[in-house]
């Protein structure tokens, strides 16, 4: 069913009793051309682009829990492409362009809201860094504006401009950045993929990867039995190491917990996304009015989707230092998600040493904004066997080659990226 004004009108006259499920529950087949493991944003987007761009007919997405129940439902919904390094900017800009047309593409309201992303700076060296990053972005055709203190004050007068230690000197603004409703992204891709014939299999946990005599991956062992596969794509960020280990692979990844927070609903107070430069803190306001914010990783390996109080304190302190009025809002809830923290802070979209097994992993805590391009590029890799141009740097062997993409310059310490 295509969503439009006329279907909405027709349903309104029928008291909304005629809506159909957004995606189909189809029986599990015994084998597929391509199976994507992981029914999150990246997995569903990959399946959609496999069917749409490459015409692959028999595609399945298998998901251990329910679709959209992992990190695509646990992030802080920010989309942007304000990166510094050559390997990253074209990819994230491609993602942002896909976001800009996604609602028309999927015929689904994912609430893309380009309210702007503002990175504050607090001293001269940070201003230099912001100017350098802004210039790098503009050389790749990405929008960036260096704002003075007065321009920032006009946008966000509530910030603590005269903070004794970290006075605000200006900011780097990406006007096309913003937020997207994260759950709707999973549902929109699932609906569009299902309409193209992709089977979405929920409640199906992968327990093994079957390999033939040559070592190639040929099937999945799952909680719902064996499923044959021409190719297998892993999109299970957070648990990449565990699933890859089923095929005997070790990855340059650690799993870490990242917390996020939302306040009670407030009237509109924050114009876009604002990030603090003197600590790690970012905040935006959802369309429901809640302030959505977060900060650093807890900093230790974890597969538990919950964090600890020291990080809560640190995030709230940073928030208070940046915009003291946040102290008057009450935190409604907080939660944790498990991040695939790679050793250089950048993702991996590549083939693996195991024939027939492909990897989409290591998204650190930047995976949500990458969803459309990640799906696009992973589908390209799965269908053609060669990396997509914009994701050509995200190779698994870059660690051995010394071709790291390290935005933070933090070295092989996943908890510092």
């Amino acid at each position, binding site marked *: 069913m295509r969503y439009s004004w006329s279907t909405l009108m027709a349903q309104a006259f029928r008291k909304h009793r005629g809506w159909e499920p957004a995606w189909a529950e189809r029986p599990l087949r015994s084998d597929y051309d391509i199976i994507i493991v992981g029914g999150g944003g990246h997995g569903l987007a990959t399946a959609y682009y496999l069917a749409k761009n490459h015409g692959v007919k028999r595609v399945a997405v298998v998901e251990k829990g329910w679709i959209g129940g992992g990190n695509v439902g646990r992030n802080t919904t920010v989309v942007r492409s304000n990166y510094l390094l050559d390997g990253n900017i074209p990819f994230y800009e491609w993602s942002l362009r896909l976001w800009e047309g996604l609602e028309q593409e999927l015929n689904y309201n994912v609430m893309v809201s380009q309210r702007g992303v503002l990175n504050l700076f607090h001293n001269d060296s940070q201003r230099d860094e912001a100017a350098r990053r802004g210039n790098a972005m503009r050389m790749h055709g990405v929008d960036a504006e260096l704002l003075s203190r007065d321009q920032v004050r006009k946008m966000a007068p509530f910030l603590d401009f005269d903070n004794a230690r970290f006075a605000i000197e200006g900011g780097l603004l990406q006007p096309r950045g913003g937020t997207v409703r994260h759950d709707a992204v999973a549902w929109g891709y699932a609906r569009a993929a299902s309409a193209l014939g992709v089977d979405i299999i929920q409640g199906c946990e992968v327990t093994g990867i079957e390999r033939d005599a040559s070592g190639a991956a040929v099937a999945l062992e799952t909680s719902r039995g064996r499923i044959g596969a021409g190719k297998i794509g892993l999109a299970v960020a957070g*648990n990449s*190491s*565990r699933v890859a*280990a089923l095929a005997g692979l*070790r*990855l*340059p*990844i*650690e*799993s870490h917990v990242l917390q996020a927070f939302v306040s009670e609903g407030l009237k509109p107070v924050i114009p876009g996304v604002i990030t603090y430069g003197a600590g790690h803190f970012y905040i935006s306001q959802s369309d429901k009015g809640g302030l959505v914010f977060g900060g650093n990783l807890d*900093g*230790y*390996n*974890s*597969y*538990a989707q919950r964090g*600890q*109080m*020291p990080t809560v*304190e640190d995030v709230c302190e940073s928030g208070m230092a940046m915009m003291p009025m946040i102290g008057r809002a009450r935190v409604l809830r907080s939660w944790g998600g498990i991040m695939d923290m790679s*050793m250089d802070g950048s993702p991996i979209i590549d083939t693996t040493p195991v024939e027939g097994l492909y990897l989409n992993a290591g998204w650190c805590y930047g995976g949500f904004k990458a969803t459309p391009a990640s799906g696009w590029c992973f589908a390209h890799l799965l269908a053609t066997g060669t990396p997509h141009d914009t994701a050509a740097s995200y190779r698994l062997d870059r*660690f*051995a080659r010394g071709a790291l993409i390290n935005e933070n310059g933090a070295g*092989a*310490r*996943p*908890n510092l990226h």
Partner: protein
Amino acid sequence: MHIHCPHCGSRDSGEFIFHGDAAPKRPDTLDPVDFVEYVYMRDNIAGWMDEHWYHLRGCRQWLVVRRNTLTHAIDSVTLAAVAVL
């Protein structure tokens, strides 16, 4: 999460710095393949893992903490200087 430091007693985890899996050992060769494994590759264990923690805001000693990454439960804490892994 509280870590029972052998010198300082039970202390909040916020006093400590995490330094990852204690298992990788610096290779005794100059083989780049071994070094890539040592520097970049991790088992990323789901379950009990021996980890290096540094008691920065305490006795400033390196510890080996056996901790469960699925539950955050801590089984044992030893001084790294005397730990035999």
